[in-house]
């Protein structure tokens, strides 16, 4: 059974034009470092999320490369400043090629 890697993102409900807001993300994932041995003495292979990309209205606004020293259930926050409403798209990329995605709407208050 595949683990559910369902991301959680926290985006403010409303944003004033030009306001700088924090975007918070979290994705459940074991971030297996590749440095452990299981109880049988077998090395546990590395399997982490190595890339996080955030786009706003299709344009990349923030990106992170993660190595095995990033904690399990990786948390990542960054900031966004905008004068338009739009869609934030998030993508996390696993070592095994799987892409986990999420999105959130950002609404401008008048």
């Amino acid at each position, binding site marked *: 059974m595949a683990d559910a890697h369902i991301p959680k993102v926290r985006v403010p409900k409303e944003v004033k034009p030009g306001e*700088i807001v924090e975007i918070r993300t979290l994705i459940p994932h074991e971030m297996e*470092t590749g*440095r*452990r*041995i*299981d*109880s049988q*003495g077998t*090395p*546990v292979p590395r399997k982490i999320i190595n890339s996080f990309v955030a786009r*706003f209205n299709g*344009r*990349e*606004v*923030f*990106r*992170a*490369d*993660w*190595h*095995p*020293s*990033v*904690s*399990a259930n*990786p*948390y*990542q*926050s*960054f*900031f*966004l*400043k*905008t004068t338009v409403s739009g869609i934030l798209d998030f993508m996390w990329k696993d070592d095994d090629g799987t892409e986990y995605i999420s999105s959130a709407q950002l609404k401008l208050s008048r």
Partner: protein
Amino acid sequence: MTAESDAFSRREALALGGSAALALALAPDFALGDVASTEAELKRLYGERPMEESRIKLDLPPIAENGLVVPVNIEVESPMTDEDHVKAVHLFAEGNPAPRVASFYFTPANGKAATSTRIRLAKTQTVVAVCEMSSGALHVARAEIKVTIGGCG
């Protein structure tokens, strides 16, 4: 070397508590990183380019109770305009098996060059953050942190 690995294995098992389904041990050839390997990595990336110890703030707790989950906050003073902004911040852990922890890539759309994450630290050590500006200038910050129970990094 073996005795050291065994001791570390016990600490690692303690850190995860009795709920861990797997009995954990570290590979016999587990080698903790050192300052030299981080400095070598910085040299490889940046050569002799000067790094100013200004504008970049690296926040870590002075003591980490759990080396598996250490909160890190990085903030760089920058107008974040098209002409003058932070391009990237690279995070290193001098005492981890591999010094590179993460890299963060910013754009003027961020408004503020700040980011938070959580990292694994294998032992008490110095964490280093290097910032690359759009101008090509480099800034560096170092933070020392005591780690009471190491998290395999």
